[in-house]
């Protein structure tokens, strides 16, 4: 996973609320056995409109996406994160996310920044014409107009993003603890093993 620290550039002033992962990547794009090339199907229904933001001269390839409440709701498809990544998006800024989407985003080196709606409103305004700056290390989103918004992030997620860590390797360090848990489980609740 590519480490992420500072991201600056144009931010797509998308702003919609309850954007579901079917909108981010429709199901017919899920019939693949690889993670690559999903960007072509990203926001397909919206991009059918030739005047859409994503393909406009200003925002094509922009690294930041600004969205409304409950971004990434619905299906657990990680293809949504792959599609955003393939579009070139490294940061999403929204008031809230679905729990599954925000986890998928982090695992693919995409930072889900949570900011209040008032900050989103201001950033939408700036993003229309000017770049946005995101600093994960210092947990800030800033603009060249002296806007400065601080955001919270779980320390573990922050570390994974900053260092581009592979979570499976980390968990494998707990192999002994997992083995001990399995042994205790077999002793305490032997019926947990499938009977057949």
């Amino acid at each position, binding site marked *: 996973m590519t480490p992420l620290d500072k991201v600056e550039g144009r931010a797509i002033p998308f702003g919609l609320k309850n954007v579901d992962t079917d909108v981010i990547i429709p199901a017919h794009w*899920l*019939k693949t*056995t690889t993670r690559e090339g999903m960007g072509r199907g990203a926001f397909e229904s919206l991009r059918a409109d030739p005047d859409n933001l994503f393909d406009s001269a200003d925002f094509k390839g922009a690294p930041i996406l600004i969205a409304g409440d409950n971004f990434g709701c619905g299906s657990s*498809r990680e293809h949504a994160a792959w599609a955003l990544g393939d579009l070139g998006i490294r940061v999403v800024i929204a008031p809230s996310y679905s729990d599954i989407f925000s986890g998928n985003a982090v695992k693919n080196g995409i930072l889900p920044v949570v900011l209040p709606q008032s900050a989103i409103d201001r950033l939408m305004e700036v993003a229309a014409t000017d770049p946005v700056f995101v600093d994960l290390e210092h947990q800030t989103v800033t603009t060249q107009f002296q806007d400065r918004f601080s955001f919270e992030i779980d320390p573990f997620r922050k570390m994974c993003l900053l260092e581009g860590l592979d979570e499976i390797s980390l968990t494998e360090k*707990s192999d002994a*603890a997992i083995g001990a848990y399995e042994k205790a489980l077999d002793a305490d609740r032997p019926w947990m093993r499938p009977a057949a």
Partner: protein
Amino acid sequence: MTRPRTLYEKIWDAHVVEQRPDATCLIFIDRHLVHEVTSPQAFAGLRATGRTVRRPDLTLAVPDHNVPTTARLDAAGGRLPIADAESAAQLAALEKNAPEFGIRYIDAVAPEQGIVHVVGPEQGFSLPGTTIVCGDSHTACHGGIGALAFGIGTSEVEHVLATQTLLLQPSKTMEVRVEGEVGPGVSAKDIILHITGVIGAAGGTGHVIEYTGSAIRALSVEGRLTVSNMAIEGGARAGLIAPDETTFAYIKGRPYAPKGADWDAAVAYWKSLATDPGATYDKTVVIDAADIAPSVTWGTSPEDVVPITGIVPDPASFADPSKQAAAAKSLAYMGLEPGTRMQDVPVENIFIGSCTNSRIEDLRAAAAVIKGRHKADNVKWAIVVPGSGLVKAQAEAEGLDRIFTDAGLEWREPGCSACLAMNPDKVPAGERCASTSNRNFVGRQGPGARTHLVSPAMAAAAAVTGKLTDVRELMA
């Protein structure tokens, strides 16, 4: 005495392998369900890193998302090829990966094949008090039997395959209490649609919802699975319903369920899981069952719910400006005018199926409405897709298939089908579908498709009249 705990807290505590300095815990996963769409990249990841599946015995794979629902075997019993090359490749990948990694596999033509969330409980693979994951957000379904079950992404699928654990932060808890008795014609689906309308599509974000109250306890296990299935539509990653005698009676004797002395020990344990008196939730919502009518969605978010007796709302009637904008967009997509009576909305397509509503009780409810009637002429496409081969066989033994086919509906093979339009079952652009599935998102049932979420009985009623219909009028 220990602090009173909720059902969620008890299951969580029993699965902590390690607690990290922050609140993050390494949680043991008891059951991992795998299907063909969200697993190929995970298996490829294992292969690339030389990893194996830690607990193949706790992993069960079954194809469901893009298998066609038309006949799978020819007259001689040979397997028919899948026309769509990409779907065929995904299915082939699962068929190769399951034996290569030694995991349990129910193949596409096995009698037990079906939607993974129907198969898990039906096989007794899903049990109360367990942690269950699957690369599918409707894993929340298994909360209906009291399992902590939730959807995960493909990276997490790979993580669980490799380590049988997940790194998780504890969720907040939310109680949705439905007290009283529901009226005639009101099903589990109407209960959960109503709840989603009340709490909103993000109402449960960050929470696990426990459904409590007399109206929930009165539900069959099938009904409870329907309710918990759509916890995710209210933003909650998981739903829970405390296991009770209804649950135990459902599970007993199923193939993977505990037997003999193990059964008694299991039931004793399951009984200890109910939320303690005095335990508190972070949030509680109380709903009067008498307020719940047969319900229907009008928009493109599952929170867009009205009683069937209601009208299409005016976007200006919402207080939140972003909801006003979303509602206006929804209505444009849905081709609906504010003020239209829901009962005046014609439908050309009917879908009875999905992990929400494809169990035997659902098919019985739909058949009871449609028996002796025929679909309306304007209904062009009406399919009934049982949730599993075993549900299909049971329905056929009861003669339900004939009731549907006599009424002009098609009787199909099990799978996810038109719920998400990955296989050939799609709703044409611009047309409406009365659907028993769980999501009315833009393009969910096919590009441009307009979905109205309803119960199985309501879908059957719509098939008969050719428009959204109050099923109570056909019940008299």
